[in-house]
């Protein structure tokens, strides 16, 4: 086993910022003292231990937040969910630490160093800094991370040697015990380990011995795996109201990264997701995004979401962004990339087709892209229907006995008539064939009694017209033989 420990020292501050580089100065206070500040605030000279009033004097525009343990916990949970993309075994160590068991992931990520770089690049993007510790036992990794020693320990034999020089306060023990150890003259972990174990246990309690044994791999050290919630919904408050679409970009990217990490861990995929943009005094804006086949590909989703946001016009400032994922679907293995028999490039083509429809959907809106299908019905209005694009088996042409026009008017257009002859674009129509009688439909409110004719103008424009048999015997244009 190899444990990678991430210690988020600045979590109280980082949980308030959204990962932007050039953020506003921000400092967090607890019990009347500043306990942390982000980089711009530190540049202005704000230091932990200051009075909030003094900090505010240094930075007028700076944001002041009171420490929020609930929010820290939430952020840590988000980070745990995100970390699931690296290993299925992530353990939450509140208030500010994550433990990742990475031995099983090394092969996939081509070694420890690439994995570490990937993790740290990901954290950078999300605006977090973490102390890293790597060791064969979780407690040792935890201690190394606390002590800021990021050189990995990969063998159990080397653990004792590496832990020995660490200061006593790096031990995960109560402050009382640590103080007592320092009182005994132990300054480093090596000195504590050298104490006679029965005497130390009697004076300082069992946890001391157990912790040391766990750290050195002499005692089992089970950790509970983090289980992300089954439904995915995540929320980010904007540090300040966002007025333009470009400002939302980092937030949506971050949410999608988290979502895809979540999906990978559960080995599942989604077909729909929704972005909810919350405004201060208005109903939230809802932006649905859909794909044609289940996916968890972050770059694909990001691309689609970007297209979707392109045609968004913000009417009010956005204060928070929520990403909600739809039902989870089983991931279908993509086999298109490699085909031993090299039969056809059909899967690749299908994938392209899906991409095309997703592109249309996200830019034009879903209702604007459709397919048509014939219905078993005698009235022309009901003999066809739009449907959502989806793959279907090729349809055999229905046995068609009568000629029908290729264009149908959505609703029949009344035709003017002169001397009893219908006119189309001011040209008199000559009836060619007919009548074909289409009748009834009392059961669904569209009761028709019509005589249909094929008609033609002098220039050879051919149309499909009808005349009502009941009531006003007007002529209507219903189709065009284009």
């Amino acid at each position, binding site marked *: 086993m190899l444990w990678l420990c991430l210690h988020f020292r600045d979590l109280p501050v980082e949980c308030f910022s959204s990962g932007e580089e050039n953020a506003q100065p921000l400092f967090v206070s607890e019990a009347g003292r500043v306990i942390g500040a982000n980089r711009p605030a530190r540049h202005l000279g704000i230091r932990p231990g200051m009075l909030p009033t003094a900090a505010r004097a240094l930075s007028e525009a700076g944001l002041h937040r009171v420490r929020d343990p609930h929010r820290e916990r939430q952020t840590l949970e988000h980070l745990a969910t995100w970390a699931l993309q690296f290993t299925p075994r992530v353990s939450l160590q509140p208030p500010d630490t994550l433990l990742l068991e990475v031995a099983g992931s090394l092969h996939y990520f081509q070694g420890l160093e690439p994995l570490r770089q990937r993790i740290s690049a990901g954290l950078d993007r999300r605006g977090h800094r973490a102390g890293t510790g790597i060791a064969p036992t979780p407690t040792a990794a935890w201690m190394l991370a606390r002590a800021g020693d990021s050189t990995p320990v990969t063998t159990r034999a080397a653990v004792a040697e590496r832990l020995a020089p660490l200061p006593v306060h790096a031990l995960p023990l109560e402050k009382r015990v640590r103080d007592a150890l320092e009182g005994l003259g132990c300054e480093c972990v090596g000195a504590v380990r050298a104490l006679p174990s029965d005497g130390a246990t009697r004076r300082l309690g069992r946890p001391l011995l157990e912790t040391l044994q766990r750290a050195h791999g002499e005692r089992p050290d089970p950790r509970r795996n983090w289980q992300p919630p089954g439904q995915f919904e995540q929320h980010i408050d904007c540090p300040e109201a966002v007025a333009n679409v470009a400002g939302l970009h980092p937030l949506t990217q971050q949410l999608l990264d988290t979502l895809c990490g979540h999906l990978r861990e559960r080995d599942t995929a989604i077909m729909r997701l929704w972005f909810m943009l919350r405004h201060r005094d208005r109903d939230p804006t809802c932006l649905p995004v859909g794909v044609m086949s289940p996916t968890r590909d972050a770059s694909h989703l990001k691309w689609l979401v970007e297209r979707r946001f392109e045609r968004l016009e913000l009417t009010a400032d956005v204060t928070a962004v929520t990403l909600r994922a739809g039902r989870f679907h089983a991931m279908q293995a993509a086999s298109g990339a490699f085909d031993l028999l090299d039969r056809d490039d059909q899967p690749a083509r299908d994938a392209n087709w899906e991409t095309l429809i997703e592109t249309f959907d996200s830019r034009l809106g879903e209702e604007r892209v459709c397919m048509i299908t014939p219905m078993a019905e005698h009235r022309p209005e009901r003999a066809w229907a739009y449907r959502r694009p989806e793959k279907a088996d090729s*349809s055999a042409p229905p046995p068609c006995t009568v000629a029908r026009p290729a264009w149908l*008017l959505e609703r029949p257009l009344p035709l003017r008539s002169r001397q009893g002859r219908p006119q189309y674009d001011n040209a008199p129509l000559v009836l060619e064939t007919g009548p074909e009688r289409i009748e009834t439909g009392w059961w669904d409110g569209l009761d028709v009694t019509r005589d249909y004719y094929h008609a033609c103008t002098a220039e050879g424009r051919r149309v499909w017209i009808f005349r009502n048999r009941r009531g006003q015997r007007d002529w209507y244009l219903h189709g065009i033989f284009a």
Partner: protein
Amino acid sequence: MKEAIHELLDQPGIWRANDPQRGGSDAALDHIPSGFAALDRVLPGGGFPGNSLTEILHEGHGVGELRLVMPALARLSRSGRWIAMIAPPFVPYAPALAAQGIDLSRLLIVHPGDQPQALWSIEQALRSGTCAAVLAWPSRCDDRSLRRLQLAAESGDSVALLFRDAAAAQERSPAALRLALGESSGQQLNLRVLKCRGTPPGSVALDSWSTAPVRTQQPLPLEG
């Protein structure tokens, strides 16, 4: 001397404008037969030029603009790729299209909101490489956008069929083929080839045009 010329002419790099059998480059060999023998005889390569732009200019609807491309579309729709209709002026009537042999499970209809969206959609559909043919009814289209569409059709290996008003015949166009539909009379449709790569402009009359049997015209029923 004559042999030398024949030898020269057999070089694949030589393109002869008036040779309908040999077409030009390899890309131009990829033609889609229109299904109308008279038209295929006139067009070099024997059909609509593949992966390029074809304009069909017609005055008003109902002169046979769709019937002209139906046989080609029916075959393309069963080739494993898709057909896209972008901004159709009316509802494409499913039973009629199916009866003409179009595989409706391969037909995509797009209703873009406005003109820029329509051009964008046409370009996307052409470029994607999944559409064998893209039929489009753009309301306006200038030389520059046509050029873009032509390039998109080339890169996506797709046939672009643009249906435009007859007035557009006056404008310049980079299309590989421009056909203008004339008045049809009875069994005949008169087509003018305004522009075609590899062949001079001319006109064709398509026979057995009308699908409806010509009967004796019935007298109109009296009002009442």
